[in-house]
């Protein structure tokens, strides 16, 4: 039987990688893992990529495939959540409170790095959160958008950006940044990672999706900082 092909958002690289290793250790054939931006994966699946499982970093791209009837809608499940955090280069923390009354723009000098607003998921969430806190107006001219949350992380790690907004999971894997604030979950749309089987997926694929829901898999997700999906 063919190995399961998992197309997963790049931000899931570590977690899904570890889960696949565990899955193989449990006696299953080795899964093929394909990581890229959710948008690239969705377009490939739309064009016939031999994927069995799709894990998107946001709802948009899962919806995109659902509209095109490329996924098995019945299997769609939001397995994970994430948190949005404010980070600074290690040792460069400044007083900051995540609160409507706080004057973020006046609290530091320089840019704010995050995913490109309205485009890259993390940037979209960041904009919502900044808006909710009343910071968007003053901060928007100072935003440096990136194509990928990793680039934003790199800018902060290098000290180019005194402040960044990334996922908690990204902040967790870097020892060159520190978290100085967490956005309340209600300040932005829930950060969820929808999973689904792609139309025509084999039986192993269903098993893998079930495996992702298992306690063992969920433990791995938590280890990397993901939260159980807030439904």
């Amino acid at each position, binding site marked *: 039987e063919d190995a399961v092909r998992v197309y997963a958002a790049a931000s899931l690289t570590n977690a899904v990688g570890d889960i696949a290793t565990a899955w193989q250790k449990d006696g299953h054939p080795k899964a093929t893992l394909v990581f890229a931006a959710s948008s690239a994966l969705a377009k*490939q699946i739309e064009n016939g990529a031999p994927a069995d499982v799709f894990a998107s970093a946001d709802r948009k791209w899962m919806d995109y495939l659902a509209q095109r009837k490329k996924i098995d809608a019945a299997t769609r499940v939001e397995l994970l959540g994430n948190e949005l955090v404010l980070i600074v280069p290690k040792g460069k923390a400044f007083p900051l409170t995540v609160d409507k009354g706080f004057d973020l723009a006046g609290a530091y000098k320089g840019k704010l790095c995050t995913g490109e607003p309205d485009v890259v998921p993390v940037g979209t969430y960041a904009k919502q959160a900044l808006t909710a806190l009343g910071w968007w107006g003053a901060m928007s001219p100072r935003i440096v958008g990136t194509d990928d949350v990793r680039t934003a992380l790199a800018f902060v790690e290098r000290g180019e950006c005194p402040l960044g907004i990334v996922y908690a999971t990204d902040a967790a*894997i870097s020892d060159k940044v520190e978290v100085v604030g967490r956005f309340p979950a209600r300040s932005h749309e829930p950060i969820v990672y929808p999973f689904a089987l792609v139309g025509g997926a084999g039986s192993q694929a269903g098993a893998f999706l079930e495996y992702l829901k298992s306690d063992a898999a969920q433990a791995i997700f938590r280890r990397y900082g993901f939260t159980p999906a807030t439904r």
Partner: protein
Amino acid sequence: MVLTPDEWVALRLSAKVALWATVLSLPLGIATAWWLARRNFPGKFLVEMFVQLPMVLPPVVPGYLLLVLLGTQGPIGSWLLEHFGIRLAFTWKGAVIASAVMAFPLMVQPVRLAFRMIDSRLEQAASTLGAPPWRVWLSITLPLATPGILAGAVLCFSRSLGEFGATMAFVGNIPGETRTLPLAIYSYTHVPDGEAAAWRLAVLSILLAAGALLIAHLANRRAEQRLGYLDHGHARH
């Protein structure tokens, strides 16, 4: 530096893809370069523009176009699959196509330049010795253009080694199949402590390029000696 099995796989795949992309581009690139260098025809400027096209766009765009055209659902891709059983999307062959398309303009320009710089009177001399045009081309034009062809091949191979955007968009990041060194480097930047591994792969890329460059360098030296180019310090007078 001992390589892990994964690194080996990516290295071999990158070498294979870049080599095939170069080998495929060569005949078509030489033909196009010659056509542009030596023929005048209406719409020539449009052809020049078309050749240059993949360069002026961010690589995802040509990659996405390839996906739409050559994907299994695409007009050309489905035809290829149906009639020849050739599947390009999501296979290493597709990675070759993506690299070749992106590197093609780099092949064409130096070869074209070399064709332009050749003294056409030598071709005339050959024709007065009974050589039909194709023989003139093979025995005079092509050998005299060798340095340009090698320069084009070096650019093409190098560009293929570094190709990321179009490959990612067209064939994805499938381990062992389409996950070339640049894609593997991308993946490592997404894992904790992946930086060291990414640097190792970057070094592998560089070594691969150095090998190719060395071969081209030696081939070029031979070709230039044959053509009697100056070696600095030895004037040709």
